[in-house]
């Protein structure tokens, strides 16, 4: 068991390495660099620009630049941001924490709703609940997440019930804990809902079909034959059996949610990794973008590993095959 996990961790590290090489190369090949704007400025001479480039090491060939970046990562600095003029690491951590908070809450909300709603649809298969739910999820699925975010923003502006951005609106120094908590919660509300709404349609469809398949299986019929009451049958007998495919979906949705959150943060001005990476892309601040890409990949890999471990714990048949 430990050996299996160790192997996975090793593979993941290799994967991260590969992603870093690929991303770095791709970003470097993209046209433009940080100093293009400066070049536009007639007051700054080309020699100054050139010397700035040398100072930041942009004149070096690609492999050298990569190795220098990797060394910086190893030192914990994660490169140097040219816009902010400091090591990227100092920019990253608190933003990463905010993104994690947002993504985790959205995940919990999305899965809770998807499970309840999916089970409901499966139970009333073919009925009006099922049909109207499927229409609703189709609409949600078709809407781009950008649009969902903007619509919620519109809601906030028009009604004034929710703040339109940021994480806090109060001076954190002289307010009590519960006020701070409420403040953050009310700021969290829209981004979490936006993210969850983007994720729910796919999840609920899978839950529905997994439940339908299980509810039609012989062992559920046998359990009905033993007189197991309906609700116990669903939650204690059917749902665990359906969890096999759902846990695989969990791994996938963690990754998807990670990347989706960046977009939502930008639209709803949540101070996470999203706005950071947008700035970095626009300014060609390579190291900032690299750091965000690596963190997203890490999030994806950890999420999938977690899902695999969960599957191992949840499904005894997989334990049987085992190492």
């Amino acid at each position, binding site marked *: 068991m430990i050996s299996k996990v160790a192997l996975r961790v090793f593979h993941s590290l290799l994967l991260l390495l590969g992603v870093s090489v690929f991303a770095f190369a791709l970003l470097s090949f993209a046209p433009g660099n940080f100093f293009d704007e400066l070049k536009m400025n007639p007051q700054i001479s080309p020699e100054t620009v050139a010397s700035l480039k040398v100072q930041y090491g942009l004149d070096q060939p690609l492999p050298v630049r990569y190795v220098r970046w990797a060394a910086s990562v190893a030192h914990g600095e994660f490169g140097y941001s040219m816009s902010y003029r400091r090591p990227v690491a100092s920019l990253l951590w608190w933003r990463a924490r905010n993104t994690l908070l947002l993504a985790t809450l959205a995940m919990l909300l999305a899965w809770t709703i998807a499970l309840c709603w999916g089970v409901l649809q499966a139970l009333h298969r073919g009925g009006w609940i099922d049909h109207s739910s499927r229409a609703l999820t189709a609409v949600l699925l078709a809407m781009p997440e950008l649009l969902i975010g903007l619509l919620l923003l519109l809601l906030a502006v028009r009604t004034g019930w929710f703040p339109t951005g940021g994480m806090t609106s109060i001076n954190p120094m002289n307010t009590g804990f519960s006020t701070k908590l409420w403040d953050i919660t009310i700021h969290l509300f829209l981004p979490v809902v936006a993210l969850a709404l983007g994720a729910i349609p796919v999840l609920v469809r899978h839950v529905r079909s997994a439940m339908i398949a299980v509810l039609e*299986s*012989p*062992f559920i*019929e*046998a*359990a*009905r*034959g*033993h*007189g*197991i*009451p*309906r609700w*116990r049958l669903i939650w*204690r*007998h059917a749902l*665990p*059996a359906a*969890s*096999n495919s759902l846990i695989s979906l969990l791994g996938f949705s963690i990754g998807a949610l990670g990347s989706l959150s960046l977009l939502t943060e930008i639209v709803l001005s949540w101070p996470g990794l999203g706005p950071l990476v947008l700035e970095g892309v626009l300014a060609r601040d390579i190291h900032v973008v690299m750091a965000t890409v690596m963190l997203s990949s890490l999030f994806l890999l950890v999420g999938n590993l977690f899902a695999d471990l969960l599957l191992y714990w*949840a*499904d*005894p*048949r997989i334990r*049987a095959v085992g190492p």
Partner: protein
Amino acid sequence: MQALLQASGLHVQYPGSQGKAIHALNGACLELRQGEVLGLLGESGSGKSTIAKTLLRLLPATAQLTGDRIEFQGRDLLKLREQEMQKVRGAQIAMIWQDPGQALNPVMKVGDQVTEVMLAHRGWNSRRCRDESEILLGRVQLENPERRIYDAYPHQLSGGQQQRVAIAQSLACEPSLVIADEPTSSLDPETEDEILHLLRAFTAQRKVSLLLITHDPKILIGLASRVAVMYGGRVIEEGPLEQVFQRPNHPYTQALLNCVPPPPGEPKPKSQMGLPTIPGSALDPESVSTGCAFAPRCSQRMEICEVRRPFPVDVEDTSRVECFLHGG
């Protein structure tokens, strides 16, 4: 012996392809007495599995069920609401399915699966249910010195062991009637023997009535006291086992028993052209005939057989048969 269960006039239809209906049961009647083992003999398409599900009201929503009555312990099961029926299932009438590997939940421990049945009906707390389940698993001879069977999962057990778990589940709440639908078809012969012995021992010991459904006449010998033969959704013959097997009245029963191969090692009759069989195949359940369902394949059919359906006739006071050869 007094009657435990009396069912009559059961009709079950499913919607078939192209708007036609599939007639699974065509006025089937069944009677089971207290403490007896009744064998229900039939081939695929005869309605034997459908009748089992009908008694427990476990038919899918698409099935249409009509019937005169299913009288069980003073109540008509056809008239019960789903809530009331759920209390009957598992507690008073229990079912053992054909393929135990499919009938057990793959992600739940087998001990828990027995406990679940007790929790649903017995009114004990979970601690007591678990303890009683362990005892019951021991009683069905599921013991492994190396590992607690309670904690095992179905895929870790052999087919025979899985079926023992199913038997434990069915006996968990001490029902009056156990319905076993082809309980040994998916097992190899050695295990089949063991399971049948176990069933017989338990039902005798606890005075539980057993409805044993099978397509193989051989397994009923030494186990069932009476046998009912099904064809085309009806019971076409029934009576004491020795009588039906030694002096079958209905041509279908005669033909079916003729298909049972002689014991191994007997010299093959030289004159026999191949194995005995029943020509043709079972009636397409989508077609409805006005006459006897077996007529097209019957070697002794008469003109009237294709026109009218025979009525049940009593033979020798203890048996019944539906065939114009005996009146009806």
